[in-house]
């Protein structure tokens, strides 16, 4: 195993009781499991990013014939399935939750370590099955990642296989949720009351409840799609008396809360990063903690806003629109608290802070566009256009994924005992930020102009904007490759990092980088809140 830290026996990476491939594939160490998820998810991210790159390329006249229309349908379907189910939903919980939750609460591991490993295997199995659907017999699914009936029941592509893969992935999410809830309740160090928990833990906890309570609805919905395809049970298929709108309801009952599984932990990570680089305690700790629960709760009630133009009753439309406006409130509370945390802090400008600030900006744009499209009359014009695509990339990519990248920059030295080149990360930021806004800001414009989403071709009047958007995608990909390359390089050649390069005060910064297998020599006893900074400069 290419072990970046060849040094001490004290590192979980070089743990002698867990040698070689077996030591990793059969590990029950939460830190190793987090790293396993990281490696897999980054690989899947690169694959899906390439698909996105290709989708944009094909919009240029010069590359028009590169793929057929059928293939284009498969491209956006698979891009969505991989990004959503193999990257953003597992997201921060799978990597940073696994690695850090026990450490942050002063424990040696999660409540169910073997179940944790099983979660990873469900993840990999689901990924392999979903990816297999790209290549086998019927061809890659072409329904969009949303698998709407009746097309998903009729199409001859490998929908059943892909959907079964997602079903398996759901188990990973549910079991991780169960593990995290139990861990948070049972394994906190003495003195670590709920209101002394780091805010990242609150984010993981709130998200875990959604993982437990919403994912099973997706599971049953996917099973029903498979049964519909195989046996024609008639629950969704209108030609057999079924209700296609019922599918949409059941699908979105999970898939909307899913976006809160994506964002709430990311927000939690931001709540960790900001106090460290402002060297002062978080403003409004309880407000942020409660807002995590509120977002998870109210966020489970808004799913109908994906269906405003599908034919729901007027009553349902109005109720869902109202609830959608309400759910913006707890998120806004967080933004105000974050900004207040920074105000008059002793700002130490570092890469994690840069990406955290970028998160706030991009998430605000995404969130506000969400409020706009939550208005019924506006939604009629904007639904299924590029505006929607722009919106969700601002929140899922600019929000959740940027939160992931910020968290990676923050905890990389802790996880691997190495520091990366700050210069190269700053260099990557420029093409990332400019490219991102060209790409997705351009999509917002295209949407308002009326360009529908998931279309292989476009009318001439949209062409100039499409070119701008594609060029943006090139810059973004360039920046991402630099970012990833810098971190990969640091894994092997980076300077050794100390236990606390950022002068943080939460528990992970008290132990070595990388941490020893058992996390703590002696379990800590907690006597204060999580963000107590020493007076004066560090």
């Amino acid at each position, binding site marked *: 195993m290419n072990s970046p830290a060849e040094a001490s026996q004290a590192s979980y990476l070089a743990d002698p009781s867990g040698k070689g491939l077996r030591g990793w594939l059969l590990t029950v160490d939460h830190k190793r499991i987090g790293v396993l998820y990281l490696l897999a998810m980054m690989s899947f991210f690169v694959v899906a990013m390439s698909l996105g790159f290709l989708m944009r390329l094909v919009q240029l006249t010069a590359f028009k014939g590169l793929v057929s229309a059928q293939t284009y349908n498969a491209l956006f379907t698979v891009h969505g399935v991989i990004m959503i189910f193999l990257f953003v939903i597992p997201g921060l919980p799978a990597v940073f939750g696994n690695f850090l939750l026990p450490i942050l609460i002063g424990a040696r591991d999660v409540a169910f370590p073997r179940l944790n490993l099983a979660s990873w295997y469900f993840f990999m199995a689901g990924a392999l099955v979903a990816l297999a659907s790209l290549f086998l017999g019927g061809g890659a699914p072409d329904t969009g990642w949303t698998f709407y009936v009746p097309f998903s029941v009729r199409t001859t592509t490998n929908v059943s296989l892909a959907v079964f893969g997602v079903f398996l992935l759901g188990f990973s999410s549910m079991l991780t949720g169960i593990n995290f809830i139990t861990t948070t309740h049972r394994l906190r160090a003495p003195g670590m009351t709920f209101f002394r928990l780091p805010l990242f833990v609150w984010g993981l906890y709130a998200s875990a409840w959604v993982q437990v*309570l919403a994912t099973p609805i997706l599971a049953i919905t996917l099973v029903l799609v498979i049964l519909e395809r195989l046996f024609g049970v008639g629950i969704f298929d209108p030609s057999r008396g079924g209700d296609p709108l019922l599918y949409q309801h059941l699908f979105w009952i999970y898939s909307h809360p899913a976006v809160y599984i994506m964002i709430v932990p990311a927000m939690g990570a931001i709540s960790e990063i900001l106090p460290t680089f402002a060297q002062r305690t978080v403003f409004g700790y309880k407000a942020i903690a409660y807002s995590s629960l509120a977002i998870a709760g109210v966020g489970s009630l808004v799913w109908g806003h994906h269906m405003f133009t599908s034919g*729901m*009753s*007027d*009553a*349902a439309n109005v109720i869902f629109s109202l609830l959608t406006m309400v759910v913006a409130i707890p998120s806004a509370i967080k933004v105000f608290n974050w900004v207040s945390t920074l105000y008059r802090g002793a700002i130490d400008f570092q890469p994690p802070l840069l990406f955290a600030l970028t998160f706030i900006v991009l998430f605000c744009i995404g969130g506000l566009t969400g409020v706009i499209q939550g208005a019924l009359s506006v939604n009629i014009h904007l639904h299924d256009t590029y505006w929607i695509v722009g919106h969700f990339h601002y929140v899922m990519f600019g929000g959740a994924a940027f939160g992931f990248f910020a968290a990676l920059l923050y905890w990389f030295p802790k996880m691997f005992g190495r520091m990366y080149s700050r210069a190269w990360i700053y260099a990557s930021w420029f093409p990332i930020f400019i490219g991102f806004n060209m790409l997705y800001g351009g999509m917002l414009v295209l949407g308002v102009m009326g360009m529908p989403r998931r279309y292989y071709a476009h009318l001439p009047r949209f062409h100039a904007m499409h070119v701008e958007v594609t060029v943006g995608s090139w810059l973004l990909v360039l920046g991402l490759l630099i970012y990833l390359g810098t971190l990969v390089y640091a894994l092997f050649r980076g300077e050794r990092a100390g236990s606390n390069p950022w002068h943080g005060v939460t528990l992970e910064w008290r132990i070595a980088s990388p941490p020893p297998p058992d996390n703590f020599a002696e379990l800590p006893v907690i006597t204060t809140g999580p963000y107590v900074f020493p007076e004066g400069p560090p």
Partner: protein
Amino acid sequence: MDPSPQTLPAETRAALYVQVWAALLVLTGLLALVSRQGQTFATLGLLTLTPLKAGLVLYFFMHLKDEGLLLRTVVLVTLGTLLIFFALLFADAALR
């Protein structure tokens, strides 16, 4: 044996369980009778007697009676979530 903190060591609950079982059988019979009286009664029975039966199993067989706030909250939140899904979905399905 390692007793769970919830149950009393030497005492047996066998008699209680049998009583609950008998009650469940009675309720089942009642449900069957009520259902024969027509659709409305059948639906009413479904909405009252059935949750009652489920409640008995939860409370006695599954020991919810002895559990603390956390587990009861888990159950309540789960059921509440389902109810809300039902209600919001029916805001569409029933009024379309």
